[in-house]
């Protein structure tokens, strides 16, 4: 079939329209994911080559080849079934990722540690297990506390994913890790027992979301870019796990790596995954110092606070700031845990109340 010349002239016209549409998409997405609003591209070093010592780093899967962002899929998952990998035999758990790109032992650490903590043979950084074990020995079981409160509608983490193309690989998705104070009834007064389906509308910290026409949406400042490789989501974002109002784990740069699963009836949710990150020592001392022993916070008992501080400072194996020079003292403890995501939705904003238990004195490593 032969077409006249002016028909071919329509081709540039259509192409022009498509270019306009593409630009329009960028403009539209700009409101949700503004380039100038602190949106971080996931800069996860996902390489897997061995370093000079022969150590192969445990890293997330590498990003797929870049391509135009085309997805419109959106889903929310609440994290549950946290597991810090503590072993009953007292050995170092092999969990998490090589966060600093160094395989400590035989290589030196990425910062100056009071006590050298060896990574496992894939460079996994995870020294917080010592603190979690000590807290458990002192009858404060962080893992049980966290899991019990999620199953009863208490605080947890919501992972918001948008712009997902639904495929095995997506070079660019938008992600937010949102602190949820819990699941409440419509009046916001009574805690509800979760069904762990998308019908659970978990409240979200009002510092992280806004409401548009009754719909809760993450603020631009809460969003980061991630990617999906082989149906595994990879994103790096600040994240705070709350064990109660004053005991929390603040991960300055948490790496979230989790499978994406299809949900019965359509849609997606996060499945099993791993969260790993840097817990600044100051936050750790303040947080674990807030634990009450026989009704008195640890930080109100100088001898106990000394012991907690010594344990935390002795476990510090990373810099809180990944860009910090290697000759600086370590000021963060590496943390890792496995978890599982289940469907959820964003509920109304709610104020998170942070009570202050410990004064500033004694929160720094000597």
């Amino acid at each position, binding site marked *: *079939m*032969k*077409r*006249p010349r002016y*028909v071919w002239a*329509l081709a540039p*016209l*259509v192409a*022009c*329209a*498509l270019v*306009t*549409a593409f*630009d*329009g*998409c960028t*403009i*539209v997405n*700009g*409101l949700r994911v*503004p380039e*100038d*609003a602190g949106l971080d591209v996931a800069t996860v070093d996902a390489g897997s080559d061995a370093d000079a010592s022969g150590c192969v780093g445990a890293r997330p899967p590498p990003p797929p080849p870049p391509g135009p962002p085309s997805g419109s899929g959106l889903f929310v998952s609440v994290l549950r079934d946290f*597991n810090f*990998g503590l*072993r009953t*035999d*007292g*050995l*170092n*758990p*092999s*969990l998490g990722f090589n966060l600093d790109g160094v*395989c*400590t*032992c*035989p290589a030196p650490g990425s910062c100056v540690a009071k006590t*050298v*903590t*060896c*990574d*496992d*043979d*894939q460079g*996994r950084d995870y020294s917080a297990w*010592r603190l979690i074990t000590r807290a458990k020995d002192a009858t404060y079981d962080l893992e049980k506390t966290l899991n019990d409160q999620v199953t009863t509608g208490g605080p947890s983490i919501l992972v918001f994913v948008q712009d997902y193309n639904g*495929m*095995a690989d997506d070079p660019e998705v938008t992600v937010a890790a949102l602190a949820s104070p819990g699941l409440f009834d419509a009046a916001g007064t009574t805690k509800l027992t979760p069904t762990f389906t998308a019908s659970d509308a978990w409240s979200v910290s009002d510092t992280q979301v*806004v409401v*548009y*026409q009754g719909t809760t949406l993450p*603020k*631009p400042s809460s969003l980061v870019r991630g990617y999906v490789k*082989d*149906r595994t989501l990879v994103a790096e974002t600040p994240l705070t796990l709350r064990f109660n109002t004053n005991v929390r784990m603040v991960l300055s740069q948490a790496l979230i790596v989790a499978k994406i699963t299809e949900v019965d009836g359509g849609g997606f949710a996060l499945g099993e995954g791993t969260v790993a990150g840097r817990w600044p020592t100051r936050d750790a001392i303040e947080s674990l110092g807030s634990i009450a022993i026989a009704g008195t916070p640890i930080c109100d008992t100088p*001898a106990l606070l*000394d*012991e907690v501080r*010594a*344990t935390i400072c002795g476990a510090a194996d990373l810099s809180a700031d990944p860009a910090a020079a290697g000759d600086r003292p370590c000021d963060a403890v590496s943390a890792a845990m496995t978890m599982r995501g289940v469907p959820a939705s964003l509920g109304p904003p709610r104020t998170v109340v942070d009570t202050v238990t410990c004064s500033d004195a004694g929160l720094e490593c000597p």
Partner: protein
Amino acid sequence: MSRLFFSSLLGLAWLVVASGAAASPKVDRDAARQFAEGTRAFKAGDYRRAGESFEAAYATKPHHAPLWNGARSWHRAGELVHAANLYEQYLREAPADAPDRDNATAALREVSQRTGRVELHAATGVRRPRIDGTEVRVPVLHVAPGEHVAEGDTDGAPLRKTFDVEAGARVSVTLSPAPPALAEVPPLRPLPAPPEPSSGLPPIVVLAGGVLTVAGGALTVWSGLDTVSQRDAFLGDPTQSRLDDAFSSQTRTNVLLGTTLGVAALTGVVAIFFTDWRGAQATSRVGAR
């Protein structure tokens, strides 16, 4: 020597205090007897027997005092690996303000120059981790310099790893099953096949579609630029009202964009599959004559 006796006294005092609490009197008596035997053996220069007695006292009634004394005894006996492991255990268990903590740290540093320090890691599901056949229940273990074997049990094949460690060196050994093969990724969803052409439409329909696409595109660009402006206003002053304005503008852009795309796609499909261009060519040929 005075350090040892200081600790011995501390340890005995602790046993006396503890006996007044919940512990069984027989356990306290046995621990005190073993502790006293260790002290006597140490004084007599029988460091091996002293070390064994202090360890027995610890096993009967765990406390950091016999650990320190045991470490000192094995150190004197020349059993450096044994001593280093007890110093490590003492430093793990003694309180932050324990009087011998600094001495233990210094002694461990000295002994560690002649032992190998192994940090054993194990993945979830690895059971009964062992080094040279002895089950390990501590995160750090000192061994004699040379070749060693780490083993562990799993639900699958048992794990076995041989490693070398030199005097004064630290090594990290991990017992972990081989990672499972990557799960097969589901194939991408195939795109639907394009519809078969069925009938011919006059070319004017395509022309009209092109005009509508251009007009829609222009409107979309205008609306998109307005959205950018609204977004910037929101980012500069993130209030709910500005957000509402920005989202209204975005919704308008989305609608325009969708409509324009729809018209463009429809025009393209009509032009390629549903237009009878032969009629137009015939007409132009007739006109040319």
